[in-house]
């Protein structure tokens, strides 16, 4: 990784080589997770603050676990239990956290660009754990790693990303990542949930669900984000289920027999994915979760900096 890199804000500003390095390092980190004592002293003395202004299960806990596995000290702060409720601004909150000698700040925020805003104003490293509808780089990296482990390559794979593309930071980061690694992406969903301008993402658009299932290596399903559906993009959830829910029957009928199913979670059983599919042998959903810890360990390791001299044995 570029030794001058301070922050991880998005897939957009990572080079192909940097992505490769994060994935390779994560493979070695996975080995720690399989040991009897799942801990290495690598980040001893490094302090990490997890600022989560939006709810999260997987991302927060896998960051917390990654920090513990590498012996970093960590504190968690969520919007509901902090001075944010008393009207403190984001920058003030972050500056106060940084004043406690924190080295890395992991932030999730509903406003796109919030991590970038902090990164420009703080000395601490900032890791984007999801900012509004913009990017979710650690999710994309763990997805790339899950894919690489399954197929031993990423280049030339056919990937379909299905669902609410418009509001999905996961989709945005993943498309950028897959493009950089040379995979071929098709997005699919109701026209109201596909962004009007897809050109920067260099991916095909397909509105027909049955058509998009054909000939793909990976079907990546997205959750219908009810919290981002204030304007009505869909006539009803039932309507969406009818056209876009991946049922076992459709999977068997249209998809290739060696296809794999991925989903960033949380899954809405019976909405975008049928229970039988989520629990089938095609599903890599739980593999994605395991990989998540290793990827986050890799990122924290590669970003951590502290001045020590002299080690040349």
């Amino acid at each position: 990784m570029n030794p001058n890199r301070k922050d991880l804000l998005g897939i957009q500003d990572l080079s192909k080589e940097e992505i490769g390095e994060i994935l390779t390092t994560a493979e070695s980190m996975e080995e720690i997770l399989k040991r009897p004592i799942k801990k290495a002293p690598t980040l001893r003395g490094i302090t990490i603050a997890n600022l989560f202004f939006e709810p999260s299960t997987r991302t927060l806990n896998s960051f917390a676990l990654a920090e513990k596995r590498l012996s970093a000290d960590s504190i968690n702060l969520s919007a509901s239990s902090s001075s944010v409720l008393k009207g403190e601004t984001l920058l003030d909150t972050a500056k106060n956290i940084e004043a406690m000698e924190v080295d890395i700040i992991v932030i999730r925020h509903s406003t796109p660009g919030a991590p970038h805003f902090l990164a420009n104003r703080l000395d601490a490293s900032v890791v984007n754990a999801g900012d509004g509808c913009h990017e979710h780089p650690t999710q994309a990296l763990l997805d790339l790693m899950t894919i690489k482990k399954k197929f031993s390559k990423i280049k030339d794979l056919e990937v379909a990303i299905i669902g609410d593309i418009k509001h999905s930071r996961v989709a945005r980061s993943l498309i950028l990542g897959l493009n950089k690694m040379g995979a071929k992406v098709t997005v699919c969903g109701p026209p109201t949930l596909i962004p009007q301008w897809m050109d920067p993402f260099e991916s095909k658009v397909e509105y027909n669900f049955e058509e998009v299932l054909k000939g793909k290596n990976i079907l990546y399903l997205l959750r219908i984000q009810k919290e981002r559906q204030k304007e009505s993009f869909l006539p009803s959830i039932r309507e969406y289920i009818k056209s876009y829910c991946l049922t076992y029957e459709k999977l068997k009928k249209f998809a290739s027999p060696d296809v794999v199913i991925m989903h960033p979670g949380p899954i809405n059983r019976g909405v975008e994915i049928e229970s039988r599919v989520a629990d089938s042998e095609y599903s890599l959903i739980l593999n994605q979760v395991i990989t998540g810890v290793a990827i986050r360990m890799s990122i924290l390791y590669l970003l951590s900096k502290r001045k020590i001299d002299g080690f040349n044995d």
Partner: protein
Amino acid sequence: MNVKFIEKRVLMDEEEMGWALRRLACEVIEDNPHLETIYIIGIRQRGDILAERIRKILKELTHWDIKLGVLDITLYRDDLTAYGPKPIIGSTYFPSPIDGEDVLLVDDVIYTGRTVRAALDEIIDYGRPSRIRLAVMVKRSGRELPIASDYTGVSVDLSKHEEVRVCLKETDGEDSVKIVEVSSESE
């Protein structure tokens, strides 16, 4: 600042290295009537190659198939979070649990002792061996920690400006031990 390496002399050639390893292996046999309980662990990079060679010699001499593990100590280094490019992490591999085993740790050079310190920490995170001993190809002066080798290929006193290079066929194309002088000129 420019760092230059000037080759000063060859400490050992291929043949001498071969003999040193053989002698080292014989010492291990002498000390261990129950050789079958030995568990060799090589420290990456180069220690793992030397470990494999020692194992081969031991097998030749005794016909015992000795277990061999590989240790990558990168995550246990005490300078890891220093500024600059991060070292690439290799993988650690043990063929079986190391609890209760009689471990022979192998590295190419012992200098400050910090690599061995890191290796001991990592091994202990994997289990509790009954004993750990250390074999090195080159023992040079300059220890910063109270750590010593039990089996040594060659000992040499060097100044701070000198460095030992252990070259191996597998990684460097030839077998030799060289002394190089490190000179840094500021421009």
